[in-house]
């Protein structure tokens, strides 16, 4: 069962180029059905999970490839499987204007399975395995257009990701050697008897592994790949580079911090301060770059960089509340960012405009798309009543509660970043809706909102943004139970 949800996307993906579809709609129906079915299966699995570990294979020594559903997996798998059907629906429409669809959908669907693999992995090795795999199956997606730009971007993506994994690997080794097991256990698995006297080395390796996994989560010195990877088709940038791939990085870091090294071991050490400073810097850095960037998707990519570090900031507070904050932002940011990316994609798809300064006056011609964009912008800023506020509240609350002086500074970073977010998001909104006195409306006369396949996901996401904003309690309660190990 648990393996089947990983395998179904694999099989579906491979079947796409194999089955000779006569009409395009047949392919669409096939894919969408498969994806939706798989999502339903995932949710069923999550809701009826048992605590047992499913052992797929012995790898080497005492290392296994095995899967298990625990609280964290429920969060991430649930998130991914909820978003994927919508993103696929959106991709159908978007990809009408791109070439080699089959290859695209092959890897797009494969990625679904791999991401679920990361989410459901029961131990560090399995997660690492799928983590590497994720890099590989997403490269063709980045390369999709095969322009020089795309090739350079995917090259960079590969270097960064594989390089990062190399250092994350060191963390894996440490856990293998110094831990009692590699399984994920909340509170960490390091064996105090083995680690005695080696604390500093372990901390150093932790920092390196953090940065290694942090590559996918676009932590500061290693963030350059993400904006460049924006050359990929928008469904990819939206789902993978705002949710699946980058959040896998964040997810991996949470696993590493809370479930492998353990917060008791790390809390209050120099390693915590080191990673926290990196994260805080990234929060501000990402935003500032976003403000400077004029390419719409790249701007959103920089925004993602900063927001990912929000999640990591929550994670490195290393308290249950911090984890709650991180998880809240993990989920809520996914909804907000995918929504804004889809809006950007819709604009590009309908108008072919890519730069912020070309968006003048579009608000009158695409009111639905840009209206939803505005909602997501406000949510990202953290306006109360929308999802972003709740997650920031949880993050900042956790930081304030932790009593860690650096975390107080982190709150300040969050707020500076919120301001910068306002700057880079609202300038777009203002341009779209208030193009200025001498704006010539003829330039936008033949532009209109996209069709329902694009709009439906947008509407659903915006509803969720608002819903999470005003009524987040059950979700946050669930995160709380995850963070305290109840689930």
């Amino acid at each position, binding site marked *: 069962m648990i393996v089947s949800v990983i395998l179904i996307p694999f099989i579906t993906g491979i079947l796409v180029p194999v089955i000779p579809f006569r009409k395009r709609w047949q392919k669409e129906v096939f894919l969408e059905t498969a994806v939706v079915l798989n999502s339903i299966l995932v949710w069923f699995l999550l809701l009826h999970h048992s605590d047992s570990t499913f052992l797929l294979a012995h790898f080497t020594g005492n290392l296994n490839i095995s899967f298990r559903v625990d609280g964290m997996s429920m969060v991430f798998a649930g998130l991914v499987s909820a978003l994927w059907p919508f993103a696929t629906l959106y991709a159908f429409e978007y990809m009408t204007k791109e070439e080699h669809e089959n290859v695209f959908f092959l890897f797009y669907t494969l990625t679904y399975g791999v991401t679920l693999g990361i989410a459901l992995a029961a131990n560090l090795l399995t997660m690492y395995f799928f983590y590497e795999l994720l890099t590989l199956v997403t490269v063709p997606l980045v390369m999709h257009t095969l322009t020089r730009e795309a090739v350079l971007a995917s090259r960079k993506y590969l270097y960064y990701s594989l390089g990062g994994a190399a250092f994350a690997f060191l963390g894996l080794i440490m856990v293998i050697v110094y831990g009692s097991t590699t399984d994920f256990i909340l509170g960490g698995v390091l064996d105090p008897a083995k680690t005695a006297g080696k604390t500093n080395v372990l901390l150093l390796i932790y920092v390196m592994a953090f940065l290694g996994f942090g590559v996918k989560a676009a932590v500061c010195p290693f963030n350059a790949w993400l904006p460049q990877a924006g050359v990929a088709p928008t469904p990819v940038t939206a789902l993978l580079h705002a949710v699946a791939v980058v959040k896998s990085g964040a997810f991996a870091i949470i696993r590493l911090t809370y479930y492998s090294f353990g917060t008791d071991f790390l809390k209050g050490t120099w390693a915590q301060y080191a990673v926290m400073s990196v994260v805080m810097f990234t929060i501000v850095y990402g935003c500032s770059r976003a403000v400077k960037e004029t390419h719409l998707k790249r701007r959103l990519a920089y925004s993602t960089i900063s927001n990912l570090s929000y999640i990591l900031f929550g994670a490195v507070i290393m308290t249950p509340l911090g984890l709650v904050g991180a998880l809240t932002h993990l989920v809520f940011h996914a909804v907000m960012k995918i929504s804004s990316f889809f809006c950007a994609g819709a604009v590009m798809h309908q108008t072919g405009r890519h730069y912020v300064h070309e968006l003048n006056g579009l608000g009158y011609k695409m009111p639905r798309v840009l209206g939803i964009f505005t909602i997501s912008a406000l949510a990202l800023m953290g306006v109360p009543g929308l999802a972003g506020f709740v997650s920031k509240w949880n993050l900042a609350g956790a930081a*304030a509660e932790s009593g860690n002086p650096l975390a107080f500074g982190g709150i300040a970073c969050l707020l500076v970043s919120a*301001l910068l977010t306002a700057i880079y998001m609202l*300038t777009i909104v*203002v341009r779209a809706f208030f193009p200025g006195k001498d704006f010539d409306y003829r330039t936008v006369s033949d532009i209109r909102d996209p069709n329902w396949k694009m709009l439906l996901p947008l509407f659903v996401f915006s509803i969720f943004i608002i819903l999470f904003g005003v009524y987040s309690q059950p979700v946050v309660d669930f995160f709380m139970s995850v963070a305290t190990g109840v689930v």
Partner: protein
Amino acid sequence: MYLILLSILFPAAAGLFLLIRGRTPLSGEKGNTDRKTLLALTGCFLVITASLVFASLLTVKEGFTLFFLTKTLPIYFRIDGVGRLFSLLAVIVLPCAGFFSFAYMKHEERESRYYGFYLLVFGVLNGLCFAGNLITFYLFFELLTLSSMPLVLHSGSKEAVMAGLKYLFYSLCGAYAALFGIYFLYQNCDSLTFTTDGALRASAITQQGGFLLLTAFVMLLGFGVKAGMFPMHAWLPAAHPVAPAPASAVLSAVIVKAGVLAIIRVLAMFGKDFLRGTWVQSGWIILTLVTVFMGSLLAYREPVLKKRLAYSTVSQISYILFGLAVMDETSFTGALFHVLAHGFVKAALFLCAGAIIYKTGKTRVEEMRGIGKEMPLTMWCFTIASLGLIGIPPTGGFVSKWYLALGSLESGLPVFGVLGPVILLLSALLTAGYLLPLTIHGFFPGADYDYGSLQKKEPCKLMTVPVFILTFLSVLIGLFPNLVDGIIVMAAARR
């Protein structure tokens, strides 16, 4: 409870309705008939909202929780004394300026957008005044910024857009600084519901006192942005002049006061006893005094009328803040009184300026020689309102400044107790210096003025009546301070 909700949601919904309805730019014949229905609708909405607010002010006593944002964050509404006072100001100024706009906005485009946001602002302001805890307040504070920004950049000129963005970013910056404090208040208070005498846990004060002081200061600075306090006042003179005159009136008279309201709330949350005598208080007083003096000085040097009024707002709001910073009952009363007095006066002044611009197109002070001959009614109102701002006895401004100075002297603060009133006086002199020349040159243009070309340019009733009402009110509260006192005493003592 439904009254409160209605008075928030109705104008907001009405505003959204107007926004959605009038998407295309108005033009031609059809535009004219459209305009009439638009105005009628807006008028109705304004009146209904105002009556709703009055009704809730009079009848609602109990607070209620609407829903929980997160487990521990209720969206909670309650009408208390301070809220009532500010709501009163809003509910008078907004319809007045609204009706004024009916005439004024004739020469601007895209009216439905303007009215849409105007009504939105109205609803948000009501929410702000009725908010019963810090989170609800913060919610509406952010929304206020967002919904009032389109009013600033309404004209769509490059300058206006830049000013609008500046306003937005300054305000958000302030709001986030305040949010920083809210996070820590939340950690160190049992609840964020507004109180009168400090909500901090005693243990928190002993353990983290120093840090909490810093937090308080950051919050004061943050909310002070909206109130145009010194280091972050630059948005105000940029935003006010480019906005349409009635919008500037609302901004200056009411929206800026949201910052004041916020600071009153913060003060209450931290508790005066906690802040009194600390570096936070002295730092804050210094900032307000600097702002008072600097604002007046800049206004004195400013040739453009609306900009001059904007600087004047900077200075006057800090009168209020000074009154709060002294943390004395009397000065607190003075501050609250000044909220009303300045609100009415400044709205009247801006509307006058708007009328002048509308009729003559003149924006600079030196162009306005003989304006009193052209528009006597308007200029009379302008003069009376100016006197109110300077603080000449029969007007409200006198009463408030009296209380402010008295409170400051009573407070027994080492230096500022005396220095404060001195600076207030100096600033009053400067106020006279920058406002009265208009009256003087307006009515007495001098021997070389060409009476031949003089023609009556008195604006229509839609413009003059709101100005009258506001001027009248500013004098009324000066003549019968007890009318207001009831509310203020209630606000000062049992909020």
